[in-house]
């Protein structure tokens, strides 16, 4: 029976090509726009480290003086050197890393290459195991290298391709800011989106090309990027940040169970009280321990424009659907005589309804496929945009499925009302009127 209905549907669609094209186009445009924007939103609000993010937490403390104090306010978004080092050395979490961003001049050994600047991350050793960073060659450095301010460096795959043609460069020397570093590891492709561990350097920026121990970066006075908030005495210059009353570092911990997270929260509170007793902190203890996704929420990393675009696209889809419902209704009602004949010859109301739904579904399927092609085109256009998340806009399997379900649901929804209305025909009346 389905074959027969399909045959009838195709005949009917062929009879009025312009109208069919119009309905298919309307659904395709609506689906294409919706899926493009939804995919961008999906990519941008995704989990940067699936399977790991639930165990990663971002502790916050409030070391500021009473200037500007408001009860219930948020603690600063970063930590100072002293607090960061204290928390790092306490080792109360399963893993912990203290870090900040920067940019360093790379001086290639090849005479043919001019020196260039590369984004860098200055961090402690746990960064790599804590975030499950994949390595192509070698590995990260150890805690001893942190202590020794060792001149070791981990580079990204991209930088390794640029400098060493993709070959295993571990053990080789890389000149950075007039100092010789030993390459200990080369990362595999790794681009968590959002750039969750430091949102100051761009929420969706590419990850850094160079990773250097934090202590080494301070020893060599490598230049620092990102935001810094000061109070009281302030910084007194880039060279004295260790003693500065400024927050400028990010501190991440991994806590493998909720119980450990609760214990860590207690520890932060206890630490704040202790610091207050010592006179270093003056505000009442104010601590936070967001998990990774919570931290992204707090910072509202997904641009407002992207959400606005999704609303806009779904509004557009709604108009396209209403349009299609109208056209389909007009078309089905016009076929009253034909349907009347079918009913008179014994087709049940049910059968006529099914027949019309098959026709609606066919349009939906065609619209869905065209819509999918349009969303591929749309995403390609998004990737041409200059924003730093542009390169991330790709359709994944989940969104592909959503597209098809949306197309099918939309067209069946669009077909439901017209089909129901049309199968209400009274056969006798339709036959008589001619």
């Amino acid at each position: 029976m389905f074959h027969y209905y399909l045959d009838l549907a195709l005949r009917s669609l062929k009879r009025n090509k312009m109208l069919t094209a119009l309905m298919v186009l309307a659904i395709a445009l609506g689906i294409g726009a919706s899926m493009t924007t939804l995919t961008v939103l999906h990519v941008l609000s995704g989990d940067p480290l699936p399977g790991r993010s639930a165990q990663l937490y971002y502790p916050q403390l409030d070391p500021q003086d009473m200037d500007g104090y408001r009860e219930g306010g948020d603690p600063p978004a970063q930590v100072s050197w002293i607090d960061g080092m204290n928390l790092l050395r306490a080792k109360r979490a399963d893993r912990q890393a203290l870090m900040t961003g920067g940019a360093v001049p790379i001086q290639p050994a090849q005479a043919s290459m001019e020196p260039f600047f590369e984004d860098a991350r200055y961090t402690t050793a746990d960064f790599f195991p804590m975030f499950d960073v994949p390595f192509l060659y070698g590995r990260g450095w150890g805690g001893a290298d942190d202590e020794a301010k060792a001149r070791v460096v981990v580079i990204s795959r991209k930088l390794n391709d640029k400098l060493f043609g993709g070959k295993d460069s571990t053990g080789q020397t890389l000149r950075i800011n007039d100092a010789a570093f030993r390459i200990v590891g080369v990362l595999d492709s790794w681009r968590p989106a959002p750039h969750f561990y430091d949102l100051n350097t761009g929420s969706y920026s590419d990850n850094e090309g160079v990773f250097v121990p934090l202590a080494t970066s301070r020893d060599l006075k490598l230049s620092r990027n990102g935001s810094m908030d000061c109070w009281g005495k302030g910084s007194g210059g880039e060279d004295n940040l260790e003693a500065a009353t400024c927050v400028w570092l990010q501190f991440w911990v991994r806590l493998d169970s909720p119980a450990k997270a609760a214990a860590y929260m207690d520890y932060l509170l206890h630490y704040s009280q202790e610091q207050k007793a010592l006179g270093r902190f003056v505000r009442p203890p104010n601590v936070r321990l967001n998990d990774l996704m919570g931290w992204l929420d707090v910072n509202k990393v997904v641009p407002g424009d992207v959400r606005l675009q999704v609303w806009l696209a779904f509004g557009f889809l709604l108009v396209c659907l209403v349009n299609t419902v109208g056209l389909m209704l007009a078309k089905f009602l016009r076929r009253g005589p034909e349907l009347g004949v079918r009913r008179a010859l014994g087709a049940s109301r049910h059968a006529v309804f099914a027949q019309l739904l098959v026709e609606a579904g066919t349009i939906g399927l065609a619209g869905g496929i065209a819509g999918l092609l349009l969303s591929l085109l749309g995403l390609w256009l998004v990737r041409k945009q200059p924003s730093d998340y542009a390169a991330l806009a790709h359709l994944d399997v989940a969104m592909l499925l959503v597209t098809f379900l949306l197309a099918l649901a939309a067209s069946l929804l669009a077909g439901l009302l017209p089909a129901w209305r049309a199968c209400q025909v009274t056969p006798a009346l339709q036959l008589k009127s001619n």
Partner: protein
Amino acid sequence: MDILPILSTLRRHKITALLVILEIALTCAIVCNAVFLIGQRLERMQMPSGVAEQELVQVQAASIGKQPGANARTQEDLAALRQIPGVTAATLVNEVPFTNSSWNSGIKLDPTQKQATLNATMYFGENVVGTFGARLIAGRDFQAEEYLDFDTVQKAQKVPPQNAVVMITRALGEKLWPGQSPLGKTVYLGEDAIRVVGLVEALIRPALFGGDATAQWTLILPVRMNTGNASRYVLRAAPGERERVMAAAGAALHKADPHRVILEKKTLEQIRREFFQNDRAMAGLLAGVCVALLVVTALGIVGLGSFWVAQRRRQIGVRRALGATRANILHYFQTENFLLATIGIVLGMALAYGINLFLMAHYELPRLPAVYFPVGAVALWLIGQLAVLGPALRAAAVPPVVATRSV
């Protein structure tokens, strides 16, 4: 034209008529809001900077390794840059408009205040006002002896009183002391009491994270930068000379000290374009969606109109046979469309207002000005009339003889 017969016909096509109304209402609501949003973005892109945008270029250069004698290095660099033919001014600054990288500080009007009054940006560098081409509207520019080196300021916990002077923008003055002249007034930066000596028309802050309303909260301080703590060289030249000057400046800086990297050479116009690129893209996208919506709606009206005409061929034939003119038939369909469009527009206005309330709650947008409503209405009436014209003309062309034939 009598509209009663039209209404009675529409009553027999209730659902279809309702769908047309709904489509027009939705389109009207979305288009009104989208046009409003486009207007907002275009207005934002016109934001005044207060500097001579067509004449400025920025060259960013960073040293490799430790550089002894950064002050001497800086003076040599600037001397080399000023010698480039066509350069009318050159300086080294800590920040440049539209670069999204800024130095800010909370300022107070009373040192005992617990909360800072507001957060303003701070421009450092020699002759910032002259080089950027900001317009001094009251008071004076800094004198040579008022300048201090940035490193000195940072190390000293207190600025000597004779150096504690600042120029501010007119907007910041109006914000801090409404209705009064800011000249001679004091602001507090940390512990330092700083006297306002000059007022500039405008100088935009480099990053607008605090919202567009804070765009002109700017301080200019007599602080000299050097290659150790700043990397942004700003040069001023005639618009036609900029490309050449930029290339020459890169070469001159490299020649003066080969042990550094030239990071970026851009005109301020380029930098401004990049700063507003998201707004431009969004405005383009909104415009595209508006056009697509209007086209889809128009095509929908054409499609439905064609159906109705085909369905009513007999009826039209009978009317023509009974004496109705072609114009009567044409007007019938045009009036029908006008009626549907009007109901749709009225509903659409209410919906547009609702959408605007939602956007205001979620995206910090202002209220939709009433002027957008008639614009949306006229647009949809026009689209409706244009779309129905084809089918209506076809209806008018139906010959009276149709009445006598059985279909």
